[in-house]
């Protein structure tokens, strides 16, 4: 060490990142807007581990025995529920946020693997409808591009209350991405900084939503499922209100959820992590007797099959991927590196979706940039990624002795940290101790099928699902 050079010490409170943030805002005069998702570390699925079968449980033979992945969404009221070949869907992302090639590639991939894609804040792109065999049509506060005829062409509807990246706030699409085509679709002047309202134009609270859902069912002859998408905030209350309003499926987006453009303070400082959200939602559904009647889809930071399997074990019926699907397309891939540098970033660190200058042609309306995304090759990549997720989920389920991925349960998990145990009600590794308050979330801290098993035991029958013990039995 050079003794004449003082040691450079960076502060924790006024870190270089915080100082840079102040410098930028001192020029901008507003909050910062960017794409991607939160850069903060939240409590995550990484703090759980599976405890597969060994001697006390019998595993399924990984290479021979079937493990079912079929998932049905919308069984409550719809005549034609959605049937997925695997418990994964592709989240709503608008044509406008994404390029035409990206939307078509996602649609083709989804068709190939038997899942759904979802439109976004801008309406239905006909090319996506043609590419995606099962398409969920979003009904957003903005109603940009909303068309009743397109609504009747959809396989399901999704009323969007909010998303995890920016709960309680409307959308933003900066002027550089509002091309002539996007402007025409959204009935806006090209080049405007589009701001979307946060409230629906025609209804306000959950009591109105009852009537709105009936309207949508009337408009679609009660045939297709109605989802509601909520940014994870006051999850228990929101879930109960949505169920009471008459939805078929709840899509819950944790704070890790992605976005093409949002104020970064919302990404980092609003909403709750997906890990906590799924537990809270499951407990709410169980409390009101709607577990298994209304399906739960969770999204927000689902990075692969492991996260998906853990979400299923904690109570989700399916997961939804957005950022993961874009990364599979080519997002942040180390190609066209000079264009990453021109944005002031690097591959693996790029979150500049809001600029419209996506180096790999995904989140852009620039025709030259969009050409960099070959639709068929991109569709292959996304299909491969989803298939890899399916195999990962199945592997973990078989290892836990489950012949159906939906039989994964909290009992198959252990918490690696006290925080994770507190939030999920799963015992800490090496102990049978749960750190939390069972009185707050009694269902989360107990076996969800306890009552059913107790009933069967009282009647001399075996529990419906093997290996399930009550909370009391686990902690005895």
């Amino acid at each position, binding site marked *: 060490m050079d003794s004449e050079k003082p040691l450079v010490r960076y502060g924790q409170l006024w870190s270089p990142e915080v100082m840079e943030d102040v410098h930028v805002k001192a020029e901008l005069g507003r909050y910062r807007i960017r794409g991607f998702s939160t850069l903060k570390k939240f409590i995550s699925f990484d703090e759980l581990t599976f405890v597969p079968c060994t001697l006390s449980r019998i595993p399924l033979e990984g290479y021979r025995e079937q493990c079912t992945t079929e998932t049905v969404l919308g069984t409550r009221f719809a005549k034609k529920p959605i049937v997925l070949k695997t418990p994964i869907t592709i989240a709503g992302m608008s044509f406008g946020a994404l390029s035409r090639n990206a939307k078509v590639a996602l649609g083709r991939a989804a068709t190939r693997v038997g899942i759904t894609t979802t439109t976004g804040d801008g309406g239905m792109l006909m090319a996506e409808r043609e590419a995606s065999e099962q398409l969920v049509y979003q009904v957003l506060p903005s109603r940009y591009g909303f068309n009743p005829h397109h609504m009747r062409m959809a396989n399901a509807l999704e009323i969007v209350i909010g998303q995890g990246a920016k709960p309680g706030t409307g959308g933003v699409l900066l002027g550089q991405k509002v091309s002539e085509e996007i402007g025409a679709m959204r009935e806006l002047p090209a080049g405007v900084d589009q701001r979307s309202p946060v409230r629906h134009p*025609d209804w306000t609270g959950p009591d109105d939503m009852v009537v709105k859902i009936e309207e949508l069912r009337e408009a679609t002859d009660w045939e297709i499922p109605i989802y509601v998408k909520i940014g994870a905030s006051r999850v228990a209350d929101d879930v109960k209100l949505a169920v009471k309003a008459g939805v078929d499926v709840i899509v819950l987006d944790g704070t890790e959820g992605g976005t093409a453009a949002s104020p970064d303070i919302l990404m980092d400082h609003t909403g709750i992590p997906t890990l906590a959200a799924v537990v809270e939602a499951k407990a709410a559904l169980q409390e009101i007797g709607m577990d298994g009647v209304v399906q739960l889809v969770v999204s927000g930071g689902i990075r692969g099959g492991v996260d998906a399997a853990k979400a299923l074990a904690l109570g989700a019926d399916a997961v939804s991927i957005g950022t993961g699907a874009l990364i599979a397309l080519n997002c942040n891939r180390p190609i066209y590196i000079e264009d990453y540098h021109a944005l002031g970033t690097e591959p693996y660190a790029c979150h500049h979706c809001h600029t419209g200058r996506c180096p790999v042609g995904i989140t852009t309306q620039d025709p030259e940039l969009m050409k960099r995304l070959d639709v068929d090759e991109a569709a292959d990549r996304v299909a491969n990624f989803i298939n890899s997720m399916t195999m990962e989920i199945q592997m973990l389920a078989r290892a836990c002795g489950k012949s159906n991925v939906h039989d994964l349960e909290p009992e198959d998990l252990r918490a690696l940290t006290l925080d994770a145990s507190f939030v999920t009600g799963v015992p800490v590794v090496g102990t049978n101790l749960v750190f939390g308050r069972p009185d707050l979330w009694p269902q989360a801290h107990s076996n969800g099928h306890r009552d059913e098993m107790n009933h069967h035991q009282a009647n001399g029958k075996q529990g419906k699902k093997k290996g399930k013990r009550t909370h009391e039995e686990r902690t005895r």
Partner: protein
Amino acid sequence: MERGGGLVLVLLAIRFIGVPYTPDGFASPHEDKHKALSSTQLHPLSLQDGGDASVSTIFTIKERVCMAVTLDCATLTIREINTSIKRLALEGEREIHLIHPEARHNLGVAVFDPVTIVVEGTAGYFCGSMNDGATFHVLGNCGWSVGECMLNGEIVVERNAASGTGASIRGGTVVVKGHVGARTGVAQKGGLIVVGGDTGYMTGFMMQRGTMIICGNAAEGLGDSMYSGTIYLGGEATQLGNDAVISEMNEEDKRFLSETLAKYGLSHKRALADFKKIGSGGRLHNFSKADFELWRVAM
């Protein structure tokens, strides 16, 4: 009562009430002859008594009578009402009367056929919403969001309507001859909204395209954050919304106002000279830090 006098009374009843329809189809065994009648041919039809469903047979003359079909909402579910409307429209019926609507919600949702639906009373939420090409005439009041997300067609409400009137319409015309509530024409994307009376808070919020005529007064926030489009205001605005500005009316504006108000019998509501033309000032199209006082509310 002599047969001749009874026939006259029944004909008058048919003229004003129309022919009732049940979800299972016409009660008459002669329904397939209904449309093939000559102008002088008598045709037996069955009327269903709304109370105990008893059937009485009468005769009517098709010529010069209003052969509109009626649906008695008091005896039908919303599903039955809407299914009947769509089926009747597909079968070629061009006028359907909804009697005893009793402020039911979701009457005539997503009708895509050129049929006229007369609501003989008050409708609830979402009357005529998401319609493309149909005509609605509501003789009473309307609840929230009449005509929301409409693509094309016409809705005329004789009395008042609640909040969200014409929310996010993309085309067509919504006329309310009385007063309307808050957020009228919010996020309007095209078409025409005409209000004979006053309008509430945040009318025209985030308007994108289209035209609105308000003959009366407007509460706070008129035209807030408009991207584009035009609002003609006959009365006074408590407070214009962010970036809503008044501009000069030209001859074309005046002609449009005069013709439109005359068409809907609203010319007497306000003198042409009282109207002001309101549009977007354009300052909220792209963020500017120099306009902080404007943007602090809008963003």
